[in-house]
């Protein structure tokens, strides 16, 4: 299996699979957030009983974290290798080849999303699962309440919205690019896969945005 690190297509394969795995995680995370709009109690139940400090939730968190680590490490390796392959002499005239902005800036978008992720983990995961696990003081059981507290700040909301926009750009290229890399593409499906990717990215990011905005303006917990 050394080809997964030694071969260019092998490395791209790992990057694609880890990316697609993280897309599934995002879909789950977005679906879970939608519960906030309807019922805080239901959300707390999911956060404390289904997730929380259960053995399966800890394993799940570990697997997702591993997905992130693999995706980030491979992104760094690929980016460094590609800079080297481009050579030390750069073109003096700027490239006029029309390509999607996101496709050229996946690493930059990724770094931005990672910075957001660190803030986001500190705001929520650290107070919810981490403190409960290590039995530190201040672990929060009322997860929905914590969400409303954090998102009541307008600046936090703005940062979240910008991060979701960056995520959208990352996914619009990432989704179809991942399928292309695993070989699941041809001339006919090229356009379809790009459209499916755009719809998918829009659903995920719109879902996140709607929940954040709804919670900020108090349109949440509608069913009590």
């Amino acid at each position: 299996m050394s080809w997964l690190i030694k071969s260019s297509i092998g490395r791209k394969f790992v990057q694609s699979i880890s990316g697609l795995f993280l897309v599934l995680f995002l879909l789950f995370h977005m679906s879970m957030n939608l519960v906030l709009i309807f019922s805080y109690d239901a959300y707390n139940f999911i956060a404390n009983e289904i997730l929380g400090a259960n053995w399966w939730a800890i394993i799940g968190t570990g697997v997702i974290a591993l997905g992130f680590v693999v995706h980030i490490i491979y992104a760094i390796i690929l980016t460094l290798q590609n800079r080297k392959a481009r050579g030390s002499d750069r073109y003096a005239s700027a490239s006029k080849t029309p390509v999607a902005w996101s496709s050229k800036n996946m690493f930059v978008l990724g770094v931005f999303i990672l910075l957001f992720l660190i803030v986001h983990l500190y705001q929520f995961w650290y107070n919810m699962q981490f403190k409960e696990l290590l039995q530190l003081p201040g672990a929060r059981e009322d997860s929905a309440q914590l969400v409303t507290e954090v998102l009541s700040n307008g600046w936090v909301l703005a940062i979240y919205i910008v991060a979701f926009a960056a995520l959208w750009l990352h996914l619009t290229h990432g989704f179809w690019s991942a399928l292309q890399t695993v070989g699941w593409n041809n001339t006919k499906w090229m356009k379809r896969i790009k459209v499916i990717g755009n719809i998918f990215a829009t659903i995920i990011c719109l879902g996140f945005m709607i929940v954040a905005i709804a919670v900020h303006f108090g349109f949440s917990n509608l069913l009590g």
Partner: protein
Amino acid sequence: MDKNINIKLRIWRQKGPKEKGGFENYELQNVSQGSSFLEMLDILNEKLINEGKDPVVFDHDCREGICGMCSLYINGHPHGPDEDVTTCQLHMRKFNDGDTITVEPWRSAGFPVIKDLMVDRSAFDKIIQAGGYISVNTGGVPDANAIPIPKEQADMAMDAAACIGCGACVAACKNGSAMLFVSAKVSQFALLPQGRVEAARRAKNMVAKMDELGFGNCTNTGACEVECPKNISISNIARLNREFLKAKFKD
């Protein structure tokens, strides 16, 4: 109507592979818009030779867009601003009176500069040698129609085989990746029954050679497809990925 134009040229000059290069400015008067870009460079070189200076070195051969010898990164485009043509078929009518035209060699770690605008593209030959062929026994020539091939397959193979190996894909790629070239050369065989026999070995060996020669990892920006003078589709890259992964998982 074509007219004669005056242009300014900003051309990369470099004495040798190890020397430090730089841009030189030249001016040309009364260049016919009906002439090709390479003819314009010929005029410049004649002028330079008459002045006792070193002519600009650039690659060229057939000058009808089928040999893959010409290159040049012109005003931010490999093979210049025109669509689907090589530099030799680029006409001066794509430029206007008073334009400054910047001409650079292909830039990629896999294509080191030999002199001025000429780069060493022998890396592509090495990739072909690693598997871009089918092994055929000598002897009587088999009937061309003995093996039925669906029209669609034959057309796709022909489209892939249109690649002339000029290297514009590598020149356009921000990652210096040769995937479009390698995928076209793998696809032209993978799509036909004669190429299936060695398909797994071919995909593995050509990709291994491509990696060894220092070309980058494809990130699917699609710049190669846009600049390719022969319109090679990036769906070939998906096919190469498929062929390679299939071969590796079978091992």
